[in-house]
Structures are given as C-alpha cells and as structure tokens.
C-alpha cells in the first residue's frame, strides 16, 4: 500500500491544494526563466520585472481561486477577466471611471499594438523596451502564463503546458541569428521539468466532468518526462536546423517592402541600417580611433546599378575569402597621386550587419575575427553570418591627396571597367538630365561639373526633410522619384545622393551611392592619445561617390543641413586655392559634429532599391517561412492524434495474431475510455467498469459483456481452457464499443479526445500490484 493510498480524504485535499500551488509556482518560474531568453533582444530589465509582475498577479489569482475550491471553469473565467481588465487599464487613458472600456479604449489598444509592432519592427536588437513593446510583452506573456498554468495545474496536462515557456523561449532564436543561450535553455528546461513533476504530483487525476472519485495512480511521470525531454530537444534543435526562420522573414515593418536579409545575406544591408536609423533613441553602433586628423566615412556597401531605374546594391558576386591580404590598388588610382597610409581601429558595438564598415579605400584589414569575403572590385567586405557585433579590427587605409591639377585632369576618359556606372534607364525623366546640364553648364572638366552639382544641392535651394518625401509621395530613389525630388527640393540623404549620382551619370561621370556611416563625433576620452570617434545608429548615411580616372572614386556630400563638412576637394575654391598638400583626402570628409541629433537621416527609400522581382521573392520566402511555421504548428498539433491513431491501428491489426486478443482489445477499449475521460479507477474490476458503463454511458451491453468475459478467460482461467468468441467477434465488438463511445460524445468532446488523447499520457494499470505492497 503506497503512502498516498492511506491518506485520508482531507489530507488528500490539502495535498492537492499544495500541489496546485507548487505547480503554478513552477509555471511562473518556467515563464520567468524563458523570459530571460529575451534579454538579447531587449535592453534593460524593466520589461522583465513588469512582465513577471503581471504573470505573478495572474497566476496568483488563479492559484488563490483554486485553493478555495472554485471550479476550474470559474478560475479560467476570472483570470481571463483580470487579464482583460489589466490590459484595459494598461492601455487605456480613456476608460470610463478607470474601469469600463470605451470605444476609444479599443482604438487606443489597437493603436498601441500597432505602435509596438512598428517599434519592434523598426528597432535593431537589442531594442529599447519602450512602452509599447513592454506593454505588448506584458500582455502576451501574461496570457501565455495563464494558458500554461491552466494546462499544467488546471487540466493536468503538463507536457502541453510546455508550449508556454517554449513560445517565449522561441522568440529569441527566431529573431536573432546567434547561438541560443544554453544557460537559459537549461534553466527553462529544468523549470519545465519541475512543472511536470509538480503537476503530476498534484494528487488525483484530471478534474472530471462529474464529481466521482478520480483516477488514482493514473499519472505517469516517467512518460511525461520522456515526452518533455523530446520537447526540450526539439526546442534546442529546431532553431539550429531552421536558420532561415527569423523574425525578419516573419514580420513586416509596415513599409511593405522588406526583404528578408537572412535569405538575402549580403544583398541589402540597408534593411538593418534603416531600422537603426529610425530609432527614436540612438544606440552606439561603433567607435573608432584613427591616425587621420578628421573623422572618416565608413562605407559598408555600394548601390551601383541604376540601369533598371532603381538603385541596386552591388552583390558580392566574385567575392574571395578574406585572410588579411592586401585589397590591391584602388580602381582608377594613378601611381603619381600622393597617398598616405591611415591606420584606423574600429570597435563595433551594437551594429549587426552583413557588411563590414570600412573607410574607402582600404588597403588591408587585420585582426578580423570570423569568416569574411572580399569583393575585390568594390572593396567591400561581407560575410554570411551577418553578425558584426563585438568585432575589433585594424584597418590600414589610404588617404588620397590629389593636387588641384590632378583633379582637373582626372576623369577625362571613362575606362571600360567602370562603364557600367554610367548606365541609365531609357525612360529617365528629362528633367534630371536637363537640370544637370543646366547646373553644370559653366563647368569645363568633369571634376568641375561634380563640384557644381554638389554646390547646386548645398546652395540653399534644397532643404533637408525626413517628412517631405513621404508626404509628397516621392519617398524613393527610382528615376521618377528623383525627378519629383528635384521639383520639390526637399528630401534626405538618399534623395540627395541618388539625385546627384544620377545627374552625374547624365553628365558622363561614373557614379554610385555609398551606404555606411557618417564620421560621427569625438567622445570625451582618447585612446593612445588619439580621439575616439563615436558613431550612433542614427548616423547612417548615404552619399554619392564619383569616379575620376586617375584618382578613383571620390565621395561627395550633397546633403545639406547635417553639419557634415563636405570634403575640401569638392568645394569650388579648392582648385583655386591650389589644393595640393592640403589635408584634403577622399577619406576624411568631415569634422566631428557636436550634435548627433543633427545628423538624423533616413534610409527608408533604400528599400525602394529593390526590384519588384526581389520584393516578390522576399514575399514568397516570407510566406514560405510562414507556411513552414504553420506546418510546424500543425505537425505539433496533429502529433498526439497521429500517435494515438497509429496505436489503435496497430492493436486492431495485432488482434488477428495476439495470444491475448481479448486483453489487447480491452486495453484499446480502456484507452478510448481515457480519451473520452470516462471515469475509471485502477481498483475497478472489469465487471465494475462494465456495470458502470452500462448504467452511465449506455454502451452496447452484449459487446462489452462478451469482451469482458473473454478477457477474464484470458487472464484468470486455467491455461488451455476453451476459447471464447472468435477474433473477428472480438474485433467487431471492440469497434462497436469505440464507435458507441464516439457516437455519444458531443462533437467538441470528440475533437478534444482525438487531438488530445488522454490515454497517451496516462499510465496503464500495472500487471502486478507491486506498487501497493509494503515490505
């Protein structure tokens, strides 16, 4: 006799209460542990405490109600109402007397949800847990906790309750591409096992619809542990085998034309950069020190192809593995142009990108961890991991210091190698080329024309505005939008860069758009006597680079109003002043700006640089992932049904050959009873069960009677006694009983029994009652 059997009913009730509390507590711990997994995504810990406060409050309500013996349905209802009330209070400034939600409350909630969605979509990880995000997490995790607790404590299906922590835990690997945090996983798994343990020890079996003594010894902690272990393994393996499954491929940032950068590694960094840029509260992207006297543009990728009427990023097509070798001579740089080496040390903070920020032109990169690919033609470095965070590397760059004479002579011819950078679409609006020729009408050399173009944008006619292109409907960098921009004369860096680059092409100057970081500003401290430059997420920038044969690619700065000083050589008086030997270089373009907020920019229309085909592909991949996730959920949902179905099928098949066909049929019958939550006790004899089934459930009497007698014969009769009914008879009786059980159940119960067959996680009666013997 096990100890539990001997306990009085009062003791059992007490223990059940304690067990329920423990189970609920374990659920809270599991959720809390899983929540820690979100730390790589969100800054600070305020959101964690807020969420746990919600979880503890909700589960406390549920546990208290259970402790008072309130029916489970009421527990669920009250907890849901509390949850709903808290949501309203959290979200609502516009409730009636703080309690009753009004119509505007609902609007507020949906508005806040949209905000949260946007905030999540727009921020780079780790995101700032702003109000909208925190509220969303508090709300959803609160709901998850309630559901998990109901599954574990209320319905005593602890294995299913793992969906809760799993859901929370899955967020981080889905959003991030990095390795899962093993410690958090182990912690959550341990808490989850505790949930299973506590839930399976609550005492009696699942609460029954009728108030009869519940099943005793009907739980199987070992089986539950087995299933749980499988679930944990899946939790760990799933993110590993589905690297493409990221939030970026799932979510949409509201702009409608996102490209899943996971699939498209190396194609368009501007997605992540765009999100960086739009942060309301900029985060430090990287810092660098340099031997150059001024700050450096750090370029990540070029948009060089405009032949389709939209600026396209240059793909790392002929990339080679980078192993510290020299990049080679920058394209177009003649040997007689004076250069000096500039050493720069870059420390990346929060930037996550497929592209390495480098000053142009770079000669060599040292101490670079990870696997990287160099595209020799564009001098860009990319990798497949997309995680630049925490990198430290030394860049040896070149400061190119052309003389005024060299500048004047440069760019007279366009070599074949850069001919692609002159490509223009056929349907280029006339206003672009006419404006360009008008602006450059006074210039003699290509260099002069370039200077005139920059001067045109910086002369005061154009105004910097993040909002105007959006409201004016020309937020993009395709040809039509550039034309509109030239009309409106309001825009931000992408518009200026795109317009100047296109106009340069109409004038026969090869051009491209560089995407990267503006030089940033000096921090208070210094390293080895040199100033430390800090670059924030909102200093993302785009600028045109123009090619002059003999010197190479030179950056220009047409965007006004950002406190970025244009390169000396690009100013109209540089040639006049003689230029040579000045500190001008095509690397150092800017002095540090004092106010980082002044550099606010937006990269949004870089998304417009995707062709419809690419967008379509992205959407297809996004939908594919969505379908894969749906499929995964479907598989998880359908798995118990499948296992149960297979088990029944196998038993029906074995009926023909099994030496104890009646017992086999009876086992299947009992399992079906469990599925339909028909009361059953291990202490019941088969006849007890038959009697009850006849009275309560109204099963076909002859069938169950025949089956029961057959089992009795098999079990208790002397070996070799006369055979009972034929196997066909047994089979047909079993089938009749099962269909009678299914037939009398309401549709909802039938589906529940099929999708969540309780027999899968309930221990069957043991062959010998060893468990009840006391030594």
């Amino acid at each position, binding site marked *: 006799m096990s100890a539990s059997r001997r306990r009085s009913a009062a003791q059992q009730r007490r223990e059940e209460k304690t067990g329920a509390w423990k189970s609920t507590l374990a659920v809270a711990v599991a959720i809390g542990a899983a929540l820690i997994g979100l730390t790589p995504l969100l800054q600070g810990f305020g959101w964690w405490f807020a969420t746990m406060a919600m979880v503890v409050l909700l589960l406390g309500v549920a546990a208290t109600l259970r402790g008072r013996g309130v029916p489970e349905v009421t527990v669920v209802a009250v907890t849901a109402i509390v949850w709903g009330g808290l949501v309203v209070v959290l979200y609502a400034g516009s409730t009636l007397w703080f309690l009753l939600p009004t119509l505007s409350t609902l609007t507020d909630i949906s508005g806040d949800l949209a905000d949260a969605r946007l905030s999540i979509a727009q921020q780079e990880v780790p995101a700032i847990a702003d109000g909208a995000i925190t509220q969303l997490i508090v709300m959803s995790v609160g709901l998850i906790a309630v559901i998990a607790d109901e599954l574990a404590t209320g319905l005593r299906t602890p294995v299913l309750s793992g969906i809760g922590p799993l859901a929370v835990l899955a967020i981080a690997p889905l959003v991030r591409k990095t390795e899962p945090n093993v410690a958090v996983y182990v912690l959550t798994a341990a808490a989850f096992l505790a949930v299973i343990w506590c839930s399976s020890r609550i005492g009696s079996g699942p609460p029954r619809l009728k108030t009869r003594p519940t099943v005793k010894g009907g739980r199987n902690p070992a089986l539950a542990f087995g299933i749980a272990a499988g679930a944990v393994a899946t939790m760990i393996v799933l993110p590993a085998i589905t690297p493409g499954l990221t939030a970026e491929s799932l979510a949409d940032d509201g702009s409608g034309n996102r490209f899943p950068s996971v699939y498209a590694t190396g194609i368009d960094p501007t997605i992540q950069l765009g999100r960086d840029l739009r942060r309301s509260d900029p985060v430090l992207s990287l810092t660098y020190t340099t031997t150059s006297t001024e700050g450096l543009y750090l370029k990540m990728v070029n948009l060089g192809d405009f032949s389709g009427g939209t600026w396209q990023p240059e793909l790392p097509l002929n990339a080679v593995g980078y192993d510290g070798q020299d990049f080679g001579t920058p394209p177009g740089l003649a040997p007689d142009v004076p250069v000096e080496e500039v050493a720069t040390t870059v420390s990346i903070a929060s930037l996550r990108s497929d592209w390495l920020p480098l000053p142009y032109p770079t000669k060599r990169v040292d101490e670079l961890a990870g696997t990287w690919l160099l595209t020799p033609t564009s001098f860009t470095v990319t990798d497949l991991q997309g995680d630049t965070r925490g990198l430290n590397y030394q860049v040896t760059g070149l400061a190119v210091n052309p003389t005024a004479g060299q500048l004047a002579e440069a760019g007279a011819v366009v070599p074949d190698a850069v001919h692609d950078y002159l490509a223009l679409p056929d349907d280029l609006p006339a206003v672009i080329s006419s404006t360009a020729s008008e602006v450059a009408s006074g210039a003699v050399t290509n260099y002069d024309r370039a200077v005139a173009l920059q001067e045109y944008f910086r002369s005061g006619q154009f105004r910097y505005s993040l909002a105007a292109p959006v409201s004016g409907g020309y937020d993009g960098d395709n040809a039509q939008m550039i034309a509109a921009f030239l009309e409106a004369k309001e825009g931000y860096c992408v518009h200026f860069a795109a317009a100047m680059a296109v106009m340069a092409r109409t004038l026969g100057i090869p051009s491209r758009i560089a995407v990267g970081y503006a030089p940033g500003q000096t921090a208070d401290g210094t390293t080895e006597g040199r100033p430390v430059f800090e670059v924030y997420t909102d200093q993302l920038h785009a600028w045109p680079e123009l090619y002059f044969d003999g010197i190479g690619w030179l950056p220009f700065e047409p965007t006004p109003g950002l406190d970025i000083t244009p390169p000396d050589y690009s100013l109209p008086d540089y040639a006049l002043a003689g230029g040579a030997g000045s500190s001008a270089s095509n690397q150092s373009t800017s002095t540090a700006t004092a106010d980082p907020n002044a550099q606010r920019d937006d990269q949004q229309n870089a998304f417009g640089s995707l062709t419809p085909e690419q967008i379509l592909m992205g959407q297809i991949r996004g939908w594919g992932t969505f379908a894969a996730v749906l499929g995964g959920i479907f598989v998880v949902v359908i798995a118990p049904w499948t296992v149960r179905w297979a088990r029944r099928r196998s038993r029906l098949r074995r009926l023909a050959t099994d030496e*104890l066909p009646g017992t086999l049929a009876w086992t299947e019958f009992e399992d079906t009873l469990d599925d339909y939550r028909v009361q059953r006790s*291990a202490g019941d004899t088969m006849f007890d069960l038959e009697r009850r089934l006849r009275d309560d459930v109204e099963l076909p009497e002859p069938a169950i009677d025949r089956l029961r007698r057959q089992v009795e014969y098999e*079990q208790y009769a002397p070996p070799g006694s006369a055979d009972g009914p034929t196997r066909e008879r047994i089979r047909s009786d079993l089938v009749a009983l099962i269909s009678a059980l299914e037939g009398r159940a309401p549709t909802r119960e039938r589906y529940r029994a099929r999708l969540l067959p309780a027999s899968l996680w309930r221990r069957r009666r043991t062959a010998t009652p060893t468990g009840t013997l006391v030594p």
Partner: protein
Amino acid sequence: MTPESTASALTGTQNAPASNAPLTLAEFDEFAGAIMANLESVIDGKTEAATLALIVLVAEGHLLVEDVPGVGKTTLAKALATSVGCSVARIQFTPDLLPSDVTGVSIYNQVDHAFEFKRGAVFANIVIADEINRASPKTQSALLECMEEGQVSLDGTTHPLDRPFIVVATQNPIEMEGTYALPEAQRDRFMARISMGYPDAAAELSMLHQRELASPLDKLTAVVDKQQLHAMIETARSVYVSRAVESYVVSIVQATRVHPEFRLGASPRGTLHLVRAAKVLAALNGREFVVPDDVNELVVPVLAHRIVATRRAASDSRGGGSQAIADALRAIVASTPVPLNRSRSV
C-alpha cells in the same frame, strides 16, 4: 445429476451415490439453487446472507452470524442445516454450559468395566452454536478447538469429527451484559461473519403472511444429501485460481495490515479463507476460475471480523467499529489495482 437422483436425495438421505466425483458446473448450480431456494423460503429478502451461508457451507468454513435478536439468525442456521441432509446439532450456549457438554464425556460403563466415550453435541455435520458469547470462555474454547482441529481429543483418545463439519455460531452484539465476547483469535477461525439486518417492509409483510399458520422451517426438507454436499465441496475446491488473482488477494490482505485505521489486520488464515470462499463464489457464478470480482465481493464478510479498528477510527465512524472497518476495507478494494497482464509472458 438427474432429476430422479435429486428426488432420491430429497427422500432418502443415505442412499445417494458414494462417489465424491466433482460435479459439472451445471449440477453444482442445480444443487446450489435448491439450497438457496430453501434458505430464501425461510428468510425473506436476505439473499446476500443466504448466499454467504451457502458459500461457507461449501467452502467448509464456519459461519458467525451476528445481529440483534429476532432477525432470523437461528432460523438461517437451522434452514441451512435442514437443507443439507446431514446430522444437525444445536447447542444453546449458556453461562453454565460445560466443555464436556460440547465435546463429550468419558463415562465408566459398569457393565463393560470400561470408560466409554459419550459423544457431545459437536459430533454432527452442522452444529448450530446459538448465542455463543453467552458461554464461558472455557466452553467457547472447547468448541473453537474442535472447529480448528476437526476432532475431539479426550483422555488421550482422538475422536475425529464427521465431514463436513460446519459450525454456525450466532452472536448478539447488543446485549453484552454477562457475556464473553469472542476474542480476536477465536473470531479468526470463522470463515465469514454475516449480519442479518432488518428485513425491508415488503419482506416483513410477506413474513407475516407466511408464518400465520406454521413456521416455514417445519416445511423444509433436505435438498442435498451428504454425498452431494461432498461433491459440491470437491467441485468448489477444484476451481482454478490464477497467480494474478492470488497476488491480488495477498495485496488486499497485506493492505489491511498497514492501514492506519486498523490496529490489527487480517491473518494469513484470512487469506486462505478468502481464496476458498472466492472459489465457491466463482463456482456459484458458473465459472471454473476465480476473477477479482469474486474476491472483492467477499472481502468484507470474510475479513472484517478479523480486523480490529483503532479506537479513533471506531469512534469517528457513525456506525461504530464494524462500520469503519467495512468502509476501510471497501476503500482498500477500490484502491488496489486489479491485475491485468498485457501479455502471456508477464
């Protein structure tokens, strides 16, 4: 057994076939039905008590009938004795009853100049020990020794008792003054204890009509002779008990020994009696093997009187000690898993 031979059994008691060959289940059922009909004709609406009496008879146990006066204890015992064509003795236990009145006495025969054994009342197939708790412990012991040994030892001579030997003792639990309640060790020798209980209104009414003219006992005749009873006993003994059921019985009995509400659990003799009684019940149910249901049905009548409840349990229960014990036994049965082997090898 044919109807003719049944008729002969009804008329003459001694000319039945001598063989003790086991009966078929149909024959067993026929005899059992006849005895049951007899019993039920004298005590209305007490099928359970009657069945238990029959089970104890066929299982060669001893029966303790315990209840308040006037509910038919003695009637049942007499009806049982009469139904079987065996010798019947009735001892009314009184405080002055001597052991020798029960067992017998050696008397000096002055003719033969030798001691001669005068058999006591116990030398009968069925002994009705009425109000057994009224006799002195010494006399009780004499009877209980016979029950256990199946023999009387006197002056160095052993006198075996005729088989079957069944003691049906009655006891009044209410009127306890000046009585000697049976100690646990002696209660243990009874296979089962039954309580008659009051008849329900309908049964009491029909009883009134039946007994208006004569006692129904007078009309009773033997329906089974000694040989046939032997055959029934043999049949019941040959009922098969599987290992699974045996271990089921053992776990139930063992559970009584660790139950917190019991001061004393059931004895190994209780285990033995439970299995023997279950065999008879299985045969009565037309089965040649025992199923757990047979055991469950008999747990309370076979085990309850062997168990001593704790004072606390006895005082907590509304029905007193025996009610508490019966409840606890039923709880044990309900919580002991019924054996079910999923494969032959286990």
